[in-house]
């Protein structure tokens, strides 16, 4: 009889429930009423609480959403970190079984199993967070209501609480910014690009494959550049959201992996170094990861020391046995 684990049953049940709800109410209704409208109204409420400042409301909502999704982010970061510690072993395997892909697959799977790492663990927390981020992004743009049509649309999505209804339209000026139009001083664009670059550098997992490494390198500067350009084009409220989100990301990343690849240099040629010690193979890891690797190495040395002394004892015992056997034969 086909038997399902408890976790699988829960996942299937949740998936079926989501499909049924989407089918009955329609995806737009579900999206609006479950994610978007609550966020928009909360943003307006925050604006009211923080003396009508929409800029502060954007910052606070971004922090709250980041904190709420922190368990998922943490899982994702930990999974990524675990994957990065396995990189040297992966390289060895890739080199060893370069011609036997089937065997390589099996060995990689065994490696993951042995280390207790699930490669999908890096992806699913990100996938779960994705709709929340889209809703947050949308709620910022829609609550800004820069045109009369948008204001009408916003009015249709506000809860009928007096403080929410009365708080709109929101105060668009914040610091030197008019949140409804792009920042003409380039400050926000620079902040967005710089913070994204730092975050990218910190969170980038060292790639074993040179092709992948080249791609990662390009992404590290390309993404911040593109987002900096977008910040010059979109309402600065959205730029503010990106900057705040990046800064929170940097703080979180620091507490999980340290500065990561921010203050260290990438390896010149990964494949050439594949046969060397893991410390030289890897893009230098964070202080915490270094310490972890060092501990593992010490443990291994101790284990091997222990193994050697055990072997010596065995040898001694064996030679004693041989000597007594020879003596018995002589007698």
């Amino acid at each position, binding site marked *: 009889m086909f038997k399902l684990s408890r976790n699988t049953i829960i996942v299937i049940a949740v998936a079926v429930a989501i499909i049924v709800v989407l089918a009955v109410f329609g*995806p*737009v209704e579900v*999206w*609006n009423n479950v994610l*978007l*409208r609550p966020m*928009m109204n909360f943003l307006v409420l925050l604006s009211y609480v923080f003396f009508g400042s929409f800029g502060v409301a954007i910052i606070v909502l971004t922090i709250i959403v980041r904190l709420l999704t922190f368990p998922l982010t943490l899982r994702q970061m930990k999974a990524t970190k675990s994957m990065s510690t396995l990189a040297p072993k992966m390289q060895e395997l890739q080199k060893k079984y370069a011609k036997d892909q089937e065997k390589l697959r099996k060995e990689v799977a065994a490696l993951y199993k042995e280390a207790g790492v699930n490669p999908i663990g890096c992806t699913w927390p990100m996938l779960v967070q994705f709709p929340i*981020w*889209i809703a947050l*992004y*949308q709620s910022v*743009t*829609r609550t*800004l*209501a*820069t*045109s*009369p*049509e*948008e204001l*009408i*649309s916003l*009015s*249709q*999505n506000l809860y*009928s609480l*007096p403080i929410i*209804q*009365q708080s*709109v*339209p929101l105060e668009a000026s914040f610091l030197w910014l008019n949140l409804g139009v792009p920042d003409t001083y380039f400050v926000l664009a620079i902040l967005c690009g710089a913070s994204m670059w730092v975050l990218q550098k910190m969170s980038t997992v060292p790639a074993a494959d040179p*092709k992948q490494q*080249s*791609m990662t390198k*390009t*992404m590290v500067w*390309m*993404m911040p550049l*593109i*987002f900096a350009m*977008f910040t010059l084009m*979109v309402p600065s409220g959205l730029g503010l959201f990106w900057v705040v989100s990046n800064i929170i990301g940097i703080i979180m990343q620091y507490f999980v992996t340290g500065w990561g690849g921010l203050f260290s240099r990438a390896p010149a040629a990964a494949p050439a170094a594949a046969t060397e010690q893991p410390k030289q193979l890897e893009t230098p890891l964070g202080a915490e990861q270094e310490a972890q690797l060092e501990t593992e190495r010490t443990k291994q040395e101790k284990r091997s020391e222990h193994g050697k002394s055990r072997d010596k004892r065995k040898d001694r015992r064996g030679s004693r046995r041989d000597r007594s056997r020879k003596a018995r034969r002589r007698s």
Partner: protein
Amino acid sequence: MKTKLSIVFALLLAGCLLLTGCFPGAGGSLFSCGGAAPAGWSGPVLGNDTLYVGTMTGQVIALENVGEPIVKFKWMYPPGGETALASVYGNPAIGEDSIFVGTYDGKVYAFYTENGLPQWLTSYKTGGAIVGSPAISDGTVYIGTSQGGLHAIDAATGTAKLGFAMFQTEGHDEIWATPVVHDGVVYVAAFDGRLYALDAASGDQVWEPFQTGGAIACTPLIHDDVIYFGSFDRKFYALNKDGSQKWAEPFEADGWFWAKAVAYDGTVIVASLDGRVYALNADTGALVWQYPEDGQVGSIRGDPALVGDLFVLGSEDGKVYALDAVTGVEKWQRDLESPVRASLYGGDGVVFVQASNQKVYAIETEDARPRWVFSTKE
């Protein structure tokens, strides 16, 4: 090659993120991208048997023979082939021999009614987006802007009167409501939630501004020396000429008030963005009738029109409704299949309306039959 691929990949990723604005959005259809771009919602106005309207493609058009089954195109500004104006939200205001139009890029234009040629040498630049309509009184055009300025412009020359702006709101809060001039006083409402009464000659405040709990985009109605207007605090107010409240309590609805009220036989009839119409006793503010009695129609933003005993309104649900002004009973409804945000204009047995599908309709009030339909796209 690798770098190129990476750039393409990065662009795609960033594009995807920006396109998240194209996911199902509140109030929008699936894959409706981000917020709505400013398209305009100018309503038609009738003068000397000619109908003037700002189109959603940034033009001002004049139509003749509006009383006949086949309407005749008179003129258009700018003419075909020339760069269009910015979006037009307000209705054109008709002067002696010219009409005045404000655009979303903050410019005010004057055109001769006869041929559509510009009357002023250049447009008047206010510096702030214009959403309300201009008001004309004694050769002066009054218009509010999103920078919080109320401008008084000489209708003949297009030059500023009483300085660049005759009045400026304290926090540069938007003036989207159309100013109303009555007995030498300009009444204007702003997003700071205040209704101002200003001396038309000097720009001085006649009385302390009346403060409401929300922004005001509703054009005040002045009837029997009482000022009626609604606010985004969902309340509808009645003020005496000295700025004091007429009613013991303002009337409260479930949504914002944006449309201008109309007065009819001792009642003030007002529509709200909550999708309902309320008829209030003009003296007490007590509710006389409500349409619909249960539920609601789409949001009502445009100013309704009164044609005889019929109160006609356009709604966000794409329908035009005609109600008995005495009882609030629905007489007919006409589905235009496109949201109606523009103000309606009542003529002789006909109501003119521009829907968001860029068509101007003349609807017979007798039987809801369209007399003609003119597409401004062509």
